[in-house]
Every structure is written in C-alpha cells, then in structure tokens.
C-alpha cells in the first residue's frame, strides 16, 4: 500500500515524504531512548546489589587468605603461587593509596564547598611589601575531585576483579585443580578476551579526554563560576539549578537570546545540510552525465577548494565580502550601490548559508558522484525496459538509493552544521552584533555564543548550561536516527 502511494507522488512530494517518514521515528525514538536509559539505570543498580551479595558470600565462604585479600589485594594469589598476577594487584593497591593520600583526598575533601579559604594578605616584615596566602582554587578542586572519583571507580572495578580471582584461586586450591599459568591468562587476552586488549587504550583515553572533562563541565553548570567568581583570587560554589532557571525565563535577555539563537541554529542546520546535499547531488549528476568530457578535471577543480584550510579560505571570504572588499569594489565600479553583505543581520545570515555552499558542495559532489557510479546497472536497465524517463528513473532509483546510502552521512552533517563553529566563527564571528541579544550577534550559533561567553566574558556557568542543552539536542537526534538508520540494521544482515 505504502509502495503504491509513493508511486503516485511527484518527485518533490516523494522527497518530503521520505523525510517525514524519518521524522516520524523521532517521538517514538525519544520515548524508547528514555525507556532504555531507565532500564539501564535499573540494571546498574541491580547489578551493584548482586555484586554486593556475591561479595559477602565470598567473604563468608573464603578461607583466611581470601578474607585478607579484601584488604590486601592479591594476597591469596601470591600464596597460591600466582605470583605475577598477585603482585600486579598489590602494586595497583599501593599506587592507588599513594595517589589518594598524596593527591586525591586533598581535593575531594572540599568537593562539597568547592573551597572555603579566601585569600588573605599580610605585610612581609622583611621586605615591607604585601604578601598573599593563596585562596583555595575552586576550579582545580572540582576538576581534580572528578578525576579522583573516576580513578576510585576504576580502582573499585580492579578490586572486584581481585576478589573474584582470589576466590577462584581459593576454590581451585580446595578442589585441587591446577590454575591457569599466568602466561596462558595473558594469551587469552589475544583471543577470548581480545576485546579487553583492544579497548583498554581507547577507554582510558576516552575517560581522560572526554568523560572527565565532560563531567567537570556539566558540574560547572550548577555553580556560579562567572566573571565575578574567578579563581585563583575568588571562590565559586554550588548554586543548584539557578543557571538553568536563568536560561528558561528568569533572566529575560539571556533566555530571549538562547531561543533566538536556537531558532536560527535550526534554520541554519537545515538549510546548510539540505541545500548542500541537493546542489552537490545536482553537480555530481551533471559531471557524471554520459557524454560530459573531462570528468576527472571537473571534479578536481572542486576538490581543490577542500584542500585549502578553512581558516584561510573563510577568512578570505569574509574579506572578499567585506563592506569595502573587492566584491563591493567591483559592484561600485559597475555603478551599483555597495551591499552590506556581512554587516546587516538578514543579509549576513543569507550570506553565511551561501558561502557555506561554497564549502560544502564539493564534499557532497565528491561523495555522491562515487555513489552514482556504483549504482548497480541492472536497476537502470530494468527501469528503461519499463519505459521510465530520465526524471522518473532519477526519483525512482537514483534518489532512494542515494538516500539509503547517505543517511548516516546526512545525520553527521546535520549535527555537524548545528555545531558548525568554524564556518561562523571564521566568517563573521557571529557578527553583526545585536543590541537585542546578550553578548551575541545575528549569525551566532549556540556553539559560537558559548565560545564567546567563555573566552571573552568568562561566563563559564552559562556557557556550560548551553553546552548541555546543545549536547542533549544533538545527541538524542543522532542516537535516534542512527539506531533507525540503514547502517544499524545492516549490521545484522551481514552477520
């Protein structure tokens, strides 16, 4: 039935129909996402409870060495001749204790207040000049507390492994089964437990460079870390949900600016993504049309523009279209009035979308033209036998195939455009600024606004709230669409 409907539609309807089809999944996707998140938490809690029960059971049934291994890691293993493994556990414990005493605790103990000691000054008796006792550094307390907590979590995981291994050794000893030699255990890391080997480095890096900073930044949203509460001279502290309240209404200008920029950001992301996609596809179709000579040369012409770094090409663009730039100079020489390309709110918005076409079309062209060449010839053959014209073939075969293959690409493009820092920052820096907006300009996206708030105005807390909101929008969008997209389904087809 659905198939039948589609055949009746004209190309445009079909295109929007396909998009609407995808959109339909969003509400249900959101619900299922929430449900899955809920289930995930339940699983975590249940798992923890089970693990605790199991732990007490082991403690009750284990022999004295196993019991001691709860406190001295690896002891039971060393006794049972698994010396290397036991020593590794023990070394981990020693390192952790050293870390905690030397570093972690100093910060963790102040997490609740984020520091209380303000700076004091005194006159140095010897030199007669003012000296300072430094204040607590709230930012470092927060950051290193998060760091310590993550390290603690990792330590708990290792500790659980330790208890398990000791219990295993205990039982093996009682039942008289020989244990796997260390070498063999290592070997399993290359086979049954290969995933552990491969994921260990990426996981550590993800924690160090993404998870910890992320937790830190999320926590900043609940503090008053701004211009007036800057370390090292000042303390900042927890303020609960105040910053969220500001954005959602309590502070009229901030909330107005947020929603104004959010709306523009969505308009921008949609137009940038789809215009680039459609026009890039048209360009690819033209280049790939039968009988057009010099395909490679045409393609290379456009590819060159990709290779010039954006910070160069976009800065040049903003000079080209400046109020007294070459384009306006030529216009004036031809007798036209100069156009405020990037200095009037509306024209600037149109211009950034147009200039972004210059940036984006070559990418789409490159990608779609290779896909075009790869569409199975049989498909076209059968369409021709059916007597379908060029246009119908395009909308019946080319377009659906293209959309199928490039859905993931489109999603990443959309999210990428929603957060397209480079193009906006390099072209306009968000300008022209607006008297109606809080520290923002007409072409600012949420990310560029966020960047300015941190770098220029030190409104870290506000920026953090915006970051969280941007994150929620883009993460849920991509998660939903990705899980519904072809590539997630394809995973099972192949395996």
């Amino acid at each position, binding site marked *: 039935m659905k198939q039948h409907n589609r055949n009746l539609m004209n190309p445009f309807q079909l295109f929007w129909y396909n998009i609407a089809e995808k959109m339909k999944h969003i509400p249900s996707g959101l619900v299922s996402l929430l449900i899955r998140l809920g289930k995930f938490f339940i699983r975590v809690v249940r798992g923890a409870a089970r693990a605790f029960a199991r732990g007490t059971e082991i403690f009750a049934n284990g022999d004295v060495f196993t019991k001691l291994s709860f406190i001295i890691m690896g002891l039971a293993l060393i006794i049972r001749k698994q010396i290397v493994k036991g020593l590794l556990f023990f070394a981990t414990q020693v390192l952790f204790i050293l870390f905690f005493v030397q570093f972690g605790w100093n910060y963790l103990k102040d997490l609740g207040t984020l520091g209380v000691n303000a700076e004091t000054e005194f006159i140095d008796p010897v030199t007669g000049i003012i000296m300072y006792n430094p204040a607590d550094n709230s930012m470092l307390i927060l950051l290193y507390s998060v760091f310590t907590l993550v390290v603690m979590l990792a330590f708990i995981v290792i500790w659980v492994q330790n208890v398990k291994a000791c219990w295993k050794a205990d039982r093996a000893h009682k039942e008289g089964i020989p244990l796997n030699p260390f070498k063999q255990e290592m070997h399993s890391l290359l086979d049954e437990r290969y*995933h552990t080997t*491969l994921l260990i480095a990426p996981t550590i890096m993800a924690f160090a460079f993404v998870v910890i900073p992320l937790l830190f930044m999320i926590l900043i949203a609940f503090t008053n870390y701004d211009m007036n509460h800057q370390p090292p001279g000042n303390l900042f502290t927890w303020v609960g949900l105040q910053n969220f309240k500001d954005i959602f209404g309590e502070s009229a200008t901030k909330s107005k600016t947020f929603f104004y920029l959010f709306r523009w950001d969505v308009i921008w992301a949609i137009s940038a993504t789809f215009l680039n996609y459609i026009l890039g596809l048209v360009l690819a179709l033209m280049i790939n049309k039968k009988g057009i000579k010099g395909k490679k040369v045409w393609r290379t*012409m456009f590819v060159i523009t990709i290779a010039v770094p954006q910070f160069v090409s976009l800065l040049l663009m903003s000079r080209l279209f400046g109020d007294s730039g070459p384009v306006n100079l030529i216009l004036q020489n031809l007798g036209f009035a100069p156009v405020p390309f990037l200095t009037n709110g509306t024209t600037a918005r149109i211009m950034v979308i147009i200039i972004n076409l210059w940036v984006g079309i070559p990418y789409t062209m490159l990608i779609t033209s290779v896909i075009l060449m790869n569409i199975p010839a049989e498909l076209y053959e059968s369409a021709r036998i059916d007597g379908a014209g060029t246009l119908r073939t395009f909308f019946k075969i080319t377009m659906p195939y293209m959309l199928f293959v490039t859905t993931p690409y489109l999603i990443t493009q959309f999210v990428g455009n929603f957060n397209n820092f480079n193009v906006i920052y390099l072209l306009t820096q968000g300008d022209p600024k607006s008297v109606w907006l809080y520290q923002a300009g007409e072409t600012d996206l949420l990310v560029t606004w966020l960047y300015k708030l941190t770098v220029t105005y030190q409104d870290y807390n506000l920026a953090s709230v915006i970051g969280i909101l941007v994150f929620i929008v883009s993460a849920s969008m991509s998660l939903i669409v990705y899980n519904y997209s072809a590539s997630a389904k394809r995973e099972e087809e192949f395996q």
Partner: protein
Amino acid sequence: MSTTTLRSRRISNGIIYTILSVMSVIWLIPIVWLVIRSFQKEKGAWITTVLPQGYTFDNYIRLFTETDQFNYPLWFVNTLVVAIFTCIFATMLVLMISYTFSRLRFKSRKMFMNIGLILNMFPGFMTMIAVYHILKAIGLYQSHISLVLVYSSGASLSYFIAKGFFDTIPKAMDEAATIDGATRNQIFWRITLPLTKPIVIYTALTSFLAPWMDFIFASVIMKDNYNKYTLAVGLFRMLERENIYEYFTRFCAGAVIVSIPITILFIFFQKYYVEGVTGGSTKG
C-alpha cells in the same frame, strides 16, 4: 538514434558545460585570489583596487628567511611531526575500536557503542580547558604529545564510520580461520586488516589533516610557547592588529604552501575518502 535526440543531447550538454564552467570559476575565484595576494608587492590586507599593483616572490622567500618573529619553517616541521604521529596513533585507535565493535561479541557491547556515539556529540570547546588541566596534571604541559593525544582521541570517537565498513566484510572468513586454529589477534592482522585498506587510508588522511586545520586547541595547549606552535596558530598570529599590515601577504603565501601538499593528498586519495565517508556502502 535520431538526429533530433542527438541535437537535444548536444544542446543539453552544452548547457551543462556552461554551468560547470561558471561554477568552477566561482569556486576557484577565492583560491586564485589567495594566490594573487600571496604575490602582492605592496603591504596590507586591504587594497583599494581589485588586483594588486605589483607582484613579487618576496613573500615566499621572507617566510623562510625572516624567522625571528614568525618562524614558519619551524612551525611547518612541528605540524608535520604532530600530523604524522596523530595519523599513526589515530588510525591504530580507530581500527582497534571499530574492529572490536564490529567483530567481537561481548557483554555491554551495544552500551559501549552508544556511549561512544553520544560522547562524540559534545561540543569540544567546552571541555578544552579541562582537557588542558588534565594534560598538565599528567605531565604533558605544552607538549606535542598532548596535541597528538587530543587529536587522536577526537578522531577515534568517529569510529562508527569505520565500524560500518568492517560490517561489510563477510564474517565467514573469520570463522574459517578460527577453525584453522588462528587466534583473534592473528585474524585481525592477517585477514581483516588487508581487506580494509580504504578505511585505513580514510582515517589516516583525515587524522593527518586535523593538525593543519586546528587553530583553537593548539593555541590553548601551547599558550605562550612560541617554538611549539603549529602552523595554524602561527599563521593566525600574523593577522593580529599589530601585524596584519606587515604580514598579510606572507600569511597568504604561507597558506598557499600549506594547501599544496594537502591538495595533492586529496587528489590522490579522493576515492578512499569517499569510501570512508560512506562507510563502505559505495562498493555497491
């Protein structure tokens, strides 16, 4: 074929040639303008005419000879070193992650994958300063190693493209090898890896390019350490209020020099680039 269809095809091709020519001119104008400005004789970022009044090769020469203020050659080498190591490290990471998620089955695999996907969505600038402090805490203050780590971890979060590629390689080959007694490690190196050349090249290419393009992270990490700047940071400095008049033409020359190797790389590897972006689906 009748003559009328031939003629109409010729006309339509003619129209296409015209459109293509116009478009390539539009696309190349900024590039050509960049090249022209890099040869501009008079100083200054803004000139009162559309084209410069005189031309010279000096801007290129002085880029390499007058290094006391802007050490272009040093920055070029810095960037190259960072790019090479990022390329190696990021490729390894991406391959490891995507192979694991595509081929190995283990507890909480889906969870890991979704978490990776979500983490990739967080705007990086927000965490920049925290990342800097962590790097400092682990003793990598103002080091090129920290740049390599940051770029690589950024690249590795886009593992899902590579994963899609791995998914298209039939699993039957792995199974046959397992029967022959190969460990998973051996399968990875001997069977899977050779089949994934396009994605390896794609990852290598994109991660190699990142250090040439980034001007924010590098400046946050390197701060005041002029000798460790990468090209993008250094070139940006030429555009500051005090320097732009004197150095704009050299900025253009520097940009042209960076663009040449990247263009060549792109032209050579564009096929793999596309296969990479589309996760291998283009193999039809």
